[in-house]
């Protein structure tokens, strides 16, 4: 969109101020009306060239033009008009079905927000919807939680978030919006819930995923290790010879309702390798070398 002025001067968008100036001068000389006395079109073209130069030769205006903040005439551009959004937002707070009452039964049956009774159209109205945004923790989303939010009239609304809730899911609470007018129904409350990330749990559908660091000897010899789960800490038996990347399954320790926890093992060496271990491995590797890079051609 912000290309036209550059095309008028025949320069690239990255042209330096010197290039802009030279391009302008060359074109101005060519199309100046006084240098083209018989040419009617020259004036039009010349004005275009001047207008382009007005913006592109001014540091601040050029920046604004490139950023889309002003258009080719130097006027401030307007974000998309409201109508671009309104057509698709018939489930949002601005949705209106006000035009339907006299259009007959078929319409009031087909389309939502039916009127109740034949009350005076002007006086009886369904209350407006309210939208809330809530941030909740990963664990609250998985296990379910209760929250209390403040309504516009100062009262509180208790919200129960069911377990297994997904990030971005919207809860619709019927009748919990703004009260209706003249006996009309109350509007609805829409609660959009954003789930925060957990330091080590991840979610994949019904399962919880975790990368579990294990000690060298735990992996080689096997044994019991403590594992965090969303249901609390458990003890897991690691088979001897478990390798990094192996996935062990803890049944029913995932999202409540049948999910599992999948534990990916990650072998971690001690922070400081002591002398004993080094000595042992120096000797051991001489007679027990193995190649973990088989198949890589190195």
């Amino acid at each position, binding site marked *: 969109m912000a290309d036209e002025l550059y095309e008028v001067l025949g320069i690239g968008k990255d042209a330096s101020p010197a290039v802009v100036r030279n391009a302008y001068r060359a074109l101005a000389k060519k199309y100046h009306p006084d240098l083209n006395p018989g040419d009617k079109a020259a004036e039009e073209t010349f004005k275009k060239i001047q207008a382009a130069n007005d913006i592109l030769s001014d540091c601040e205006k050029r920046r604004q033009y490139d950023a889309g903040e002003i258009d080719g005439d130097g006027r401030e551009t307007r*974000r998309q008009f409201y109508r671009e959004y309104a057509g698709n937002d018939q489930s949002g707070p601005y949705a209106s079905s006000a035009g339907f009452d006299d259009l007959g039964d078929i319409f009031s049956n087909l389309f939502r927000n039916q009127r109740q009774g034949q009350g005076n159209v002007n006086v009886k109205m369904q209350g407006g919807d309210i939208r809330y945004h809530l*941030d909740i923790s990963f664990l609250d989303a998985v296990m379910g939680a209760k929250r209390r939010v403040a309504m*516009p009239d100062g009262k509180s609304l208790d919200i129960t978030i069911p377990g297994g809730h997904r990030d971005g899911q919207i809860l619709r609470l019927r009748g919990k919006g703004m009260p209706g007018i003249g006996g009309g129904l109350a509007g609805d409350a829409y609660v959009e819930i954003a789930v925060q990330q957990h330091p080590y749990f991840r979610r994949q559908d019904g399962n919880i995923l975790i990368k579990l660091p294990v000690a060298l000897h735990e992996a080689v010899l096997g044994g019991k290790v403590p594992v965090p789960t969303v249901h609390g800490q458990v003890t897991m038996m690691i088979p001897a010879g478990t390798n990094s990347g192996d996935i062990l399954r803890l049944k029913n320790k995932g999202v409540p309702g049948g999910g599992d926890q999948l534990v990916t093992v990650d072998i971690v060496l001690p922070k400081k390798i002591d002398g004993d271990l080094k000595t042992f491995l120096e000797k051991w590797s001489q007679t027990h070398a193995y190649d973990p890079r088989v198949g890589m051609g190195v």
Partner: protein
Amino acid sequence: MIGENELLGKFVELRHETLEIWISRGWVAPARSRNGFRYREIDVARVGLIYEFTVELDLAEETIDVVLPLIDQIHGLRNQLHRLATAIDTQPAAVRQKIVQTLEKTAR
């Protein structure tokens, strides 16, 4: 979604107090969160519309009270008309023909 400060930054002459009045009049309905209001793109566009009405076109508040619901009603109607048109379009040719004939008979 953006917060109120970022929104106010987009409109040079818009003040927090004015925005509060618009919200209380039901002209714009942003989502509420613990840290204040949050504005989706449609809310920003609506604020832009009201801004143009008040600041640039100098419409009175009572006028906007009338005009905004009318605009919303039009969008609601257009949306339903589109749905109806789509429903008709997917009918067999014979059904569509009947509908067209009825429309022609009732045209002025």
